[in-house]
């Protein structure tokens, strides 16, 4: 095991793939000399040169679309969209093109494209740089959606995304970049679609993604001090979804909280709640509780922003609510 940050883990997956395979390359805005707006691609220009670490103009549609084209020709491009808020600009290419070419061609074509993006609130960037939009893409057959929460998962899942023959949306959370964690010495791929149980427990299952995994783990510890045993499960891949893992867990604990940073309404938690209530109906002792951002754009002023997005306390409160029910 070695220790690396989430940022380094993402970089390492790309660099290893690029070393092994000339068909892998990265493109995006300011990813070359500057190393990306979050420093994720730092040093890669020096190692791989400007043909494979490509700065692009501000053209989200064209760079995603160029990735689609190169992928159709058998390459494995990684496109970085600087903020996930800007996936809105490439929505057509992602939803109507990348997700559907294989299908519409009756299986003749594949689009092995990875779209990396990042976002999240907590540093007061304002309403157009802080949304979480992963839920949209889970509604689109043909796409895969990955959202890792630890360095080990980030590295393994990004590798697997690059080598997946479908278009994968790969979400990173800005506040997780400095997070350190252990990763195996050798990069081991991880199948897309398998959840991770971060912590076992008996009384409540907390299904959490991204930054909220860590808030959930803190909440679980606090709950334990109150005598509540919490299982924390991270689906990691939102599409396809490891339904079995989460249903298994909830059948055991009989209670479920789902937590993410996106707004609750129509967020990923809605899908989790819908699946759990359907497949673990007879086991549930309380409704699935949803934790997420309050229903507003992300405000600028830090006092408001902090209140809007969920934290450990919100997860803990939901855990208490759910065990408080009989």
């Amino acid at each position, binding site marked *: 095991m070695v220790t690396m940050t989430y940022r380094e883990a993402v970089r390492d997956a790309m660099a290893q793939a690029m070393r092994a395979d000339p068909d892998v*390359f990265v493109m995006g805005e300011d990813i070359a000399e500057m190393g990306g707006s979050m420093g994720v691609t730092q040093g890669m220009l020096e190692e791989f040169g400007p043909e494979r670490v490509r700065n692009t103009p501000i*053209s989200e*549609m*064209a760079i995603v679309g160029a990735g689609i084209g190169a992928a159709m020709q058998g390459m494995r491009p990684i496109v970085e969209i600087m903020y996930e808020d800007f996936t809105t600009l490439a929505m057509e290419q992602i939803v109507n*093109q990348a997700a559907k070419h294989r299908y*519409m061609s009756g299986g*003749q074509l594949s689009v092995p494209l990875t779209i990396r993006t990042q976002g999240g609130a907590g540093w007061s960037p304002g309403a157009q740089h802080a949304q979480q939009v992963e839920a949209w893409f889970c509604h689109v057959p043909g796409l895969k959606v990955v959202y890792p929460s630890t360095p080990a998962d980030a590295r393994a899942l990004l590798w697997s995304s690059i080598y997946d023959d479908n278009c994968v949306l790969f979400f990173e959370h800005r506040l997780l970049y400095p997070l350190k964690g252990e990763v195996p010495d050798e990069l081991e791929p991880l199948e897309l679609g398998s959840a991770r149980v971060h912590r076992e427990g008996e009384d409540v299952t907390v299904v959490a993604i991204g930054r909220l995994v860590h808030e959930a783990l803190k909440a679980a510890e606090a709950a334990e001090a109150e005598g509540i045993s919490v299982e924390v499960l991270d689906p990691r891949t939102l599409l396809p979804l490891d339904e079995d893992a989460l249903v298994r867990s909830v059948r055991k604990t009989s209670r479920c909280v789902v937590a993410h940073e996106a707004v609750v309404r129509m967020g990923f938690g809605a899908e989790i709640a819908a699946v759990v209530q359907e497949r673990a109906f007879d086991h549930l002792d309380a409704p699935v509780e949803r934790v997420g951002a309050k229903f507003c754009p992300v405000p600028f002023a830090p006092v408001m922003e902090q209140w809007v997005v969920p934290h450990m306390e919100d997860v803990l409160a939901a855990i208490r609510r759910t065990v408080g029910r009989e």
Partner: protein
Amino acid sequence: MAKVEQKGHTLSRERLVDFLRELLLIRRFEEKVEERFRAGDLSGFLHVSLGQEAIAVGVCRALDGSDVVASTHRAHAHALALGMHPNELMAELYGKVEGCSRGYGGSMHLYDVARGLIGSNAVVGGGLPSITGSALAFKLRGEPRVAVAFLGDGATNIGTFHESLNLAQLWGVPAVFVCENNGYAESTPAWQQLPITDLAKRAVAFGMHSITVDGQDVEAVYHAAQRAMKHARDGKGPVFLLANTHRLTGHYVGDPQVYRSREELREARETQDPLEKLRARLELPGEEWDELEHEVAVLVQASVDFALNGTDPRPEDALENVYA
């Protein structure tokens, strides 16, 4: 920048007759599509290329076997000109497993990857970025291939057009963007949708090489396309190939065309038919023409029979091909 191609009469008669046969095949195929739609055989949304056949033939004949093409909602002509068998195309329109997209695509989503057709697109401008990207792949790998996109005049208004051509020029990739300028986007005439009359000016914004050609003259299109392909293949960067043309029918099959006058249409049909132009130039004897007509009619009718005898997919096949 913009140079109008002069008609050159440099191709052999034999070659031109071959072009004429292809034009005629497309024409009769499209007419058959209209007929079968009216008869209630075909469902969905069909756009035929009557009047624009010469662009498809002139451009596709100028391609190498390894080049790739992205088409539009008006895709039948491109598919046929690329060498797709009429059977496969007609079967697709009938939603059969034997269709070029195995029934998953339909008229606006034709694929024939073996022949270079990497998708026609029902989203205006939707295929352009992937042509820039395909050309990028060719450049990165050092392959002498060209990626070609067809697009309409209406498509020059959409953001993907701007971004794709801009990126292609910036990176100097081997791409050719063929604009089929028929003066309409659905019902909307040029003056209502385009702030300029000379669409070659679009290329100026990117510093892209452009060539303008009479899209009703198949030989001129062929020569222009050859020059464009050579430019791109030689590493000189992308080309904007503007072919002015006429849509001699409605936007879609069934379009009552309330927005244009009968006279406008009649005049265009009488004076702007690329088949008639080539036929006249070749001074083709009636007998030879009849032979071509017969040959083509047999092919087209066979494609309908083939499609009618085709296999319907099983409903649950719908869940195949979603993921690789």
